[in-house]
């Protein structure tokens, strides 16, 4: 079939529903494990029980896990010949339909007038990044990133004298631990940290968010970065901030680091703090002569 004429709007609506209402399995497992690690009878254990119960209810009732359905961030990998303009239109239409269906809260506010557009569309809203690839099918990753954790996400410019952070991986470790401490319970931990080293202020933030799509149990192909991820994971959990900032043994559930080339003058460390509701979902569309096949994950 000629995929240039395909309208995927309904599939994008379903993708949004999946992301908003169904927490990925790896996140659930990590939350279960965290729950087992907290001391019985503590506020931390109680918080994780509530979180796990909420995840079940949201899936059962097809209602949002969190009322802040965040900024929808779409990463679209498309084959040669697809119209990104048409895909954008379909995604924006899907966002509006998903809002009507209460999968999304109306979340796009005009920064000048303060008026909520009411349908999750607006200037550069939702966020859509396109990547042409050599595959024949279409792959779409969606992340719903809430405002509470976005507000505690941050960017450091190294060297940072106050933290004794130089332009090396030890400096990265120091500023990331500082970011986790500063966030306390405000970003709805236990968190997943997406970290980008390098880039510019714009590309670093984008790269840091893209790390949040990685499964919790994947292994960083760069051994130095894999070691850094493990070290930050262990040390952040020694801070004792705990679920919701109630105190406890689980402050982060995962740490994912990537590096980008940078200017000689700049050394940024971008930290994307993601709440426990790390709502990601994906869609694969493959085409053959008979038609198309759609799979959600």
């Amino acid at each position: 079939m000629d995929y240039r004429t395909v309208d995927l709007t309904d599939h994008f609506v379903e993708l949004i529903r999946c992301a908003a209402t169904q927490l990925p399995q790896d996140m659930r497992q990590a939350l279960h494990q965290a729950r087992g690690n907290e001391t019985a009878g503590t506020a931390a254990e109680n918080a994780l029980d509530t979180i796990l119960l909420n995840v079940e209810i949201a899936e059962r009732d097809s209602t949002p896990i969190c009322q802040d359905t965040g900024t929808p961030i779409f990463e679209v990998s498309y084959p040669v010949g697809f119209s990104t303009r048409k895909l954008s239109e379909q995604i924006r239409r899907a966002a509006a339909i998903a809002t009507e269906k209460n999968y999304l809260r109306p979340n796009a506010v005009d920064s000048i007038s303060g008026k909520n557009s009411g349908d999750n569309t607006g200037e550069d809203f939702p966020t859509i990044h396109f990547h042409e690839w050599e595959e024949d099918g279409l792959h779409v990753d969606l992340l719903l990133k809430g405002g509470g954790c976005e507000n505690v996400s941050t960017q450091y410019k190294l060297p940072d004298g106050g933290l004794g952070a130089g332009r090396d991986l030890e400096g990265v470790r120091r500023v990331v631990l500082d970011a986790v401490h500063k966030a306390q319970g405000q970003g709805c931990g236990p968190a997943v940290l997406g970290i980008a080293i390098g880039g510019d202020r714009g590309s670093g933030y984008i790269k840091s968010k893209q790390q949040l799509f990685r499964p919790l149990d994947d292994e960083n192909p760069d051994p130095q970065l894999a070691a850094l991820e493990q070290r930050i994971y262990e040390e952040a959990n020694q801070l004792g901030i705990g679920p919701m900032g109630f105190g406890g043994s689980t402050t982060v559930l995962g740490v994912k680091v990537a590096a980008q080339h940078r200017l000689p003058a700049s050394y940024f460390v971008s930290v994307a703090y993601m709440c426990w509701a790390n709502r990601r979902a994906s869609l694969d569309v493959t085409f053959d002569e008979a038609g198309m096949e759609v799979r959600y994950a």
Partner: protein
Amino acid sequence: MPKLTTPISDEAIRSLKAGDTVELSGIIVTGRDAAHKFMIERFIKQPVQPEDEALYAELKKLLDGSMIYHCGPVVKTHEDGSYSFVAAGPTTSSREEVYQSDVIRHFNLKGVIGKGGMGAKTLKACQEQPAVYLHAIGGAASFIAQSVKEVLDVHLLEFGVPEAMWVIRVEDFPAVVTMDSHGESLHAQIEAQSKEKLTALLA
């Protein structure tokens, strides 16, 4: 587990200690960034203007002895025009720190509900009032929506669904007291303890 019902007495508030788990019932009102800015600018900083008098009187009555919930819900509108909450977890409270103490005093609030805790100004207002800060579980929106039994009214809907002031009746709304009326803040404790750990890790 202590149960609170609005309007809440000063004695009930004083009996609560940071760390207690409570269940709240009764009528409360949601309010977040736009609502707090509005209340300060239109009701507290200047005499109430004639066009705002009806809303002011209504809020005075609703909030007296009650609580504000920092929440921007997902709301379903039914065919008959009534509303229900689909998802209704707390939003980050620290953004209201600049406004909260004045709002607590002006409207005789017995507490606020949110997440992430608040700062020294609000803690002081909690001591004087008395009032408490109740921490709901962030992100547990579908679960918390089950304790919102009825949406009674909405004000300032022109601010958009998340920012409007929704008048709701809750039953056994679960929360943790993280700032009490005796000057204790779990947030300040955790902040200080984790700062020590951080300093050791960066030594």
